[in-house]
């Protein structure tokens, strides 16, 4: 099963329920309350949250329809979602000049930062960019070792210090080395941190500042990695990480599971931050561009096009 099938499949049950309720509905001017309730609930069950779900419900309730069958309804739902997601779909763009283009990767614990770095690094190297990884997580047990193994996997050099060392000094060395050796992209790993821990957030601002010491434009990208299984707290993560570390874009991981990642819809409405890519597995190739139509159709329970 492809991740996209799974993404759709998981939603199918809920969508089927909607289907049952509206099949037989052929010519009405507006949708009845039960159908609208079902739509709203289906959206909530995809992690869109009560607020965003209500807004989409209202948008659909305001529309008038000539003829509507189940598929028609799903298409309309997909359209509404796609409308919200399309403006934020933006692939990573390596433009930093002078080199290196610096990408800082941040997020809460275990969201998939280190793995995503491996995948992005691989993706960029396939496009012939030179990549250097910096082991900015000096805190978690064997985090440095983990990044080093990813470096070996994708044949990218890794700059690392000692466990327990100062992350700021490692990332400084990273920019220095990348500048001196003319490497295109420096990707900086950081320790996972919950956004309500002030001292860890302060440490992150410091890392960010240090990155700009040798190259004013750095970091060019600050990517917040979100776990698709996370619920409404993801919105809070975006808000706080944006405040302290100036998030410029998002990557959502673990969409190969049953989580729909509907929180991205709420996030797109609320923050409008670019979504660069999604993670659909643990392997080096399991990174996909963010395709708003595919995700919207999946949430609406429509098959991939």
């Amino acid at each position, binding site marked *: 099963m492809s991740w996209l099938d*799974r993404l759709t499949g*998981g939603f199918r049950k809920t969508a089927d329920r909607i289907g049952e309720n509206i099949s037989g509905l052929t010519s009405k001017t507006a949708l009845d309350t039960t159908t609208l309730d079902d739509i709203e*609930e289906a959206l*909530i*069950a*995809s*992690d869109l*949250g*009560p607020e965003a779900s209500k807004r989409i419900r209202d948008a659909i309730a305001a529309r008038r329809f000539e003829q509507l069958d189940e598929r028609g309804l799903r298409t309309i739902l997909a359209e509404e979602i796609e409308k919200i997601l399309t403006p934020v779909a933006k692939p990573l763009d390596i433009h930093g000049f002078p080199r290196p283009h610096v990408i800082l990767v941040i997020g*809460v*614990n*275990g*969201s*998939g930062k280190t793995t995503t770095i491996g995948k992005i690094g691989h993706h960029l190297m396939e496009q012939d960019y030179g990549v250097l990884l910096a082991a900015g997580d000096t*805190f*978690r*047990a*064997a*985090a440095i*070792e*983990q990044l*080093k*193994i*990813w470096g070996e*996997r994708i044949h990218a050099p890794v700059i690392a210090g000692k*466990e327990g060392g100062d992350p700021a000094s490692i990332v400084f060395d990273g920019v220095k080395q990348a500048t001196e050796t003319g490497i295109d992209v420096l990707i900086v790993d950081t320790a996972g941190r*919950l*956004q*309500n*821990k002030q001292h860890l957030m302060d440490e992150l601002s410091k890392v960010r500042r240090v990155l700009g010491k040798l190259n004013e434009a750095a970091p060019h990208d600050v990517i917040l990695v979100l*776990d*698709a*299984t*996370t*619920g*409404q*707290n*993801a919105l*809070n993560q975006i808000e706080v990480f944006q405040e302290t570390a100036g998030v410029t874009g998002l990557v959502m991981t*673990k969409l*190969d*599971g*049953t*989580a*729909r990642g*509907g*929180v991205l819809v709420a996030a797109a409405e609320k923050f409008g931050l670019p979504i660069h890519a999604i993670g659909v597995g*643990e392997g080096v190739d399991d990174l996909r561009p963010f395709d708003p139509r595919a995700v919207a159709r999946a949430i609406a329970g429509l098959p991939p096009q």
Partner: protein
Amino acid sequence: MFDSLSDRLSGVFDKLRGRGALSETEVRAAMREVRVALLEADVALPVAREFVEEVTERAVGEEVVRSVTPGQMVVKIVNDALVELLGSTNAELDLNTSPPAVVMMVGLQGSGKTTTTAKLAKRLKEKDRKKVMMASLDVARPAAQEQLAVLGRQAGVDTLPIVAGQSPTDIAKRALESARLQGYDVLMLDTAGRLHVDQQLMDEMNAIAAASKPAETLLVVDSLTGQDAVNVAKGFGAEVELSGVILTRMDGDARGGAALSMRKVTGKPIKFAGTGEGLDAIEPFHPDRVAGRILGMGDVVSLVEKAAETVKMEDAERLAKKMEKGKFDLDDLALQIKQMQAMGGVGALAKMMPGMKGMKAAGDVDEKALTRLEAMMSSMTPGERAKPKIINAKRKIRIAKGSGTTVQDVNKLLKMHQQMESAMKKLKKMGGFGKLAAMFGGGKGLPGGDGMPDLGGALPGGLPGLGGPGAPGGLPPGFDKFSKK
């Protein structure tokens, strides 16, 4: 977000100023807001729906405490139901098996299994004085085994030496053998993260379980989890026999609705909460705290509790004043019985009193007995209630008739009151009123359990505390006479 919720809530509640018992309309109106609160807190939709339905049934007809609104009362009832649901089961690890007892950790990628393995191992070693070994069966994630080895060194817990190229089941077998030979009490197995829809990895997990026969299989779940919690719980629950759940990252600021989803769907207790990255950051799960977070209406809940306490305090003060004079009349007894009924009757009371031995028997007390007592007392004149001594044989017959009971029953009641009164007098001699007042005022503590053990001997019938208004105390002395055979 929280503010708007409170606002919305008071908007609904302002309209509902009914007194007395909660009506269905009131309950449903308040429940709409509760439902949104649950969904905002990431409680999974089907779980939220079912829970709201159950609590609605429970809330309709409940008495509203003086000075709070019906809506606030509903929130309090919801809160109590949440606490009960989240924590009604014993949550200790059960490692009573021939050693080594195997603890297997399973869960999604990145949920916190490896860290939690080390935390639990450290806890078992330091707190329970167990000899613990850890082994990582994670051959998938880069440096996973190394990670556990580092954590083992930090925690001072042994780890199985790493042998490259072995399969997870082979490592499990080697670990078991090694733990057996070296006399370890507990073997902790950390496994690779896996998706419940990945059948191959689910099979692998089952093979590990078959090879190691875990005493505990713990599902490690991120407390930030959203609606997917249901799928995860169902997916893992369908594959292995889970014995409990551990919620990690409770040090975050998520509302933590996953706790409810997990509890409901797996039916297993939440045994621990991870509260940080450090190896000591693990605690037993606290249902009350988590309920407060999920509901996000801690202020409302404590308001109702305060109001209820105030009401009880007023009654308690009245009672205490009378008792200061060594007086305890039948009105006071009636008040006590009313309060017992309000607390949900004798059965509910029994559950609430951990310190009370032999309460299994009390659980058998005829619930109707309370009603009978009340009936008898309402058949008395105010004069009789204030001065029970005047109740002669003729009056007894009248009371029995009026309440549909027998003269024997009336005698029992009078005997009960007498014992109570003499207990009061004894208490007074002992100068126990300070303690008594504190007990009434305390409200929270269960006096039977730990409040006043030194008084036990002075009281007839092993009266555990006085069943005072401040807290649901013991049964009045002589109450056992009303028990079923």
